[in-house]
């Protein structure tokens, strides 16, 4: 390669298409937001379900039954804060679409009526 020693900086985030307010397909933008929320919620439920499946496999392979211990677990302050931060992120991921598109009057509107059909 004749670009010897060139370095490449990877931006943390980019993407005009998937950024911003995105696209709107329904006359009532709340329906767009509800579907996005439903999709994120479904993905989150599956992700947690998948993790529990893996966890059960790993524990079973070690002959460990932790059900009772899980029920009795009391978190310390650090764990409480960490779990709260993770939970806040989870809520943002699911319900963020309502903030992303607060109104239907946005540049990305692609409804059939505004295309004149």
């Amino acid at each position, binding site marked *: *390669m*004749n*670009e*010897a020693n*060139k*370095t*490449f*900086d*990877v*931006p*943390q*985030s*980019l*993407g*005009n*298409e*998937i950024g911003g307010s*995105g*696209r709107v*397909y*329904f006359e009532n933008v709340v*329906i*767009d937001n509800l*579907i*996005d929320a439903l*999709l*994120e919620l*479904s*993905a*989150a439920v*599956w*992700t947690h379900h*998948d*993790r529990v499946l*893996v966890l059960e496999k790993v524990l079973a392979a070690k002959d460990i039954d932790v059900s009772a211990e899980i029920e009795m677990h009391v978190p310390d302050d650090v764990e409480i804060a960490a779990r709260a931060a993770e939970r806040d992120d989870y809520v943002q991921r699911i319900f963020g679409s309502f903030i992303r598109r607060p109104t239907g009057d946005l540049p990305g509107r*692609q*409804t*059939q009526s505004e*295309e004149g*059909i």
Partner: protein
Amino acid sequence: MDRGQIGILPRPTSLSDESYLEFVTSFRKFAIQRGFPALATIGEAALGEALENGEVARPAEGKEIPLFDIKRVFAKIPLVPTWQRFVRSQQEMMWRRTRESFMHNADQTMRDMAAAEASHPERIHVDPDFVPPEYTRCEIHCQPGGYTDDPLGGLVFHYGTKIFYEGANDQDELHAELAEKTTLPADDRVERILDIGCSIGQATTVLKDLHPSAEVWGLDVGLPMIRYAHMRAVQRDKNVHFKQALAEETGFADGHFDLVLSYILFHEVPVKKMSDIVAEMFRILRPGGTFSIFEFPNNDKGQVTPSYRFMIDYDSKNNCEPYSPGFVQSDFRGILETAGFVVEAGPPVSNPFLQSLVATKPAT
């Protein structure tokens, strides 16, 4: 944490990312394999009724129903905006989480690509003064940064397209099929091969496996694509060359190649560039050389159904495919023939949406 590979495919950097993206894959399968056929059935039935009752005028013999009328009828079906929302949201979830996941290993990926370039600099060819023109820099398929502007783009493309192919190309199976179905020149002489618009070189390396004594090149406009392609090839001990250049200005000598392959390149360029690329391929093929093309369908004989025309229009506007309607409406075969090629149908492929053509440069 390095979670290893899935065969020759990179594994997301956490189980949570992998589970999330597997959900997106299943949802895409649902939307494309079940949602679109339902939409097509309902839409075409509604269109039939509209033709019957005069709401839509019957086209003259040899003419097509205007896209405007197809969209007007389809717009009345509640499933349509739902399906559009589903597909767009799925694309956004796919790219967002794929990039987020691999950003955790971005430094290592950059080091791996640099190491491959240090070990085999003779196999990657980049003009430091080359600047991708604006028409190549759109975020095709909504990929952040497109093919040109994200240094991590090759890796993001690799896993993102795993989802796009719904798991059917995890080990490059579809690219292997295309490479195997690439038509050889009549004299079977294959010394130099070009994979034009090669992206991350999935077909390029298979072409080398199939023709081990040939010199094999992959060419793409995106530096992130060819850097990742080169790294992958070096890591897998595949002796192939990758070059960053425009398909319409390859820089190769006249008659240099015996065989050229292109896979879904032409619908991603403007029609004018398409003609320029075809002329360039004619120039760099030797007499008797063959150009195998696997591509979107053209509508020059009205063979694309109304529901597919609706879907391609949607895809163009909502999946950042700005040039595909122009390609579908073009006389692609005529452009190939005007350039001097003799064009025949190529071998059918397992994806029935694709057309397969073989364009041969006459031997004399």
